[in-house]
């Protein structure tokens, strides 16, 4: 059985109904035979009553209106501004669809802007080993060299055109020196080696 000191710590929580059921029972048993603790708990209840009696009740007239005025004067968050703008423009479509469109547009724009940089970055790291024997001082013979690696089946005129085709897509660089390129010619699927004539590597 607990004594007054131990029960005293629980009296407030007992009065507040915040004890576990077995603790509530323990305190109740103690109070039934202890006048001091009964007086103590009565004092706790009195404090509560007195505090409620002296608690001021501030007037809330106009409070919500003041808050609303302050909120209405806040700069709108970016997301809300975008949402409102989209709603105005695409009200009938629905903001979900409009948001989807906006996100797709941003993604497409980012892809367009980033692709050249991404390719350059990829090529820089994918082609560390120089595998092309052709050097820049051979640049004068480039069309001939390219023509050599093109299939014999391609007519001579076409081979000359392909060797000088600046529209072909470069797949990878085969040298650390960014002066030699290898690509697949899109029409024939033929690998093409190309050395730009404006670059002269230091040998």
């Amino acid at each position, binding site marked *: 059985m607990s004594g007054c000191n131990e029960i005293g710590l629980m009296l407030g929580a007992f009065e507040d109904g*915040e004890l576990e059921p077995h603790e509530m029972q323990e305190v109740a048993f103690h109070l039934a035979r202890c006048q001091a603790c009964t007086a103590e708990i009565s*004092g*706790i209840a009195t404090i509560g009553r007195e505090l409620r009696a002296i608690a001021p009740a501030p007037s809330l007239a106009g409070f919500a209106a003041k*808050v*609303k005025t302050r*909120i*209405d004067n*806040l700069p709108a968050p970016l997301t809300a501004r975008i949402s409102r703008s989209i709603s105005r423009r695409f009200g009938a479509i629905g903001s979900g669809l409009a948001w989807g469109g906006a996100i797709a547009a941003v993604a497409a724009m980012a892809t367009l802007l980033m692709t050249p940089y991404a390719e350059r970055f990829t090529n820089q790291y994918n082609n560390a080993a120089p595998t092309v024997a052709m050097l820049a001082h051979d640049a004068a013979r480039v069309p001939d060299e390219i023509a050599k690696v093109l299939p014999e089946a391609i007519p001579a005129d076409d081979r000359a055109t392909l060797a000088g085709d600046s529209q072909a897509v470069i797949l990878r660089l085969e040298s650390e020196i960014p002066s030699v390129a290898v690509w697949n010619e899109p029409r024939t699927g033929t690998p093409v080696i190309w050395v730009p004539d404006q670059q002269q590597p230091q040998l």
Partner: protein
Amino acid sequence: MKNPARQNGDEAELIERARSGDSEAFGVLVERYQRRVVGVAMAVVHNEDDALELAQETFVRAFENLSKFESRSSFSTWLYRIAANLAIDFWRREGRRTVLHGEDAEIEIGRMPSPQGDSFKAASRTELSGRLKQALEELTPEHRAVILLREVEGLSYDEISETLQCPRGTVMSRLHYARGRLREILKDIGEN
């Protein structure tokens, strides 16, 4: 303690609308919780004008930070926590000073026992109120907040714990201390 899972649909919808910038929806939430939020601020700063200012600031901050509110917790407790933090910061910054102006000052003067007409009972009641107020002023804002949130605002221990961001055990020990301190004062008055 209010279970967030039981947060009614109406409130969830109001919060969602307020999140997208609907100040009318937020206004409904302000009307719903203004009294309690002012009460929480009052519990700490113990000054009506400051409490009203802090409560306004609480709602503005809540509106600005609605995106950070996670519906796992109760919206009301989230609001009370903002109010308590602002009020405790304010109290620490401004120090404790109670300056009564205008009507408040007149009310306080009116409460003082007058040598002519007041009965002994009325005078001792006024003295009790005055002493209680003084005792509340002497408590730390944390102790004062705990006892006023419990006794005046009727918050549960769990709600107080979440509002003041302290363990439930701390709530219990602060309440025990604050009540003991106030009991001493009441006892003194009873003996005099």
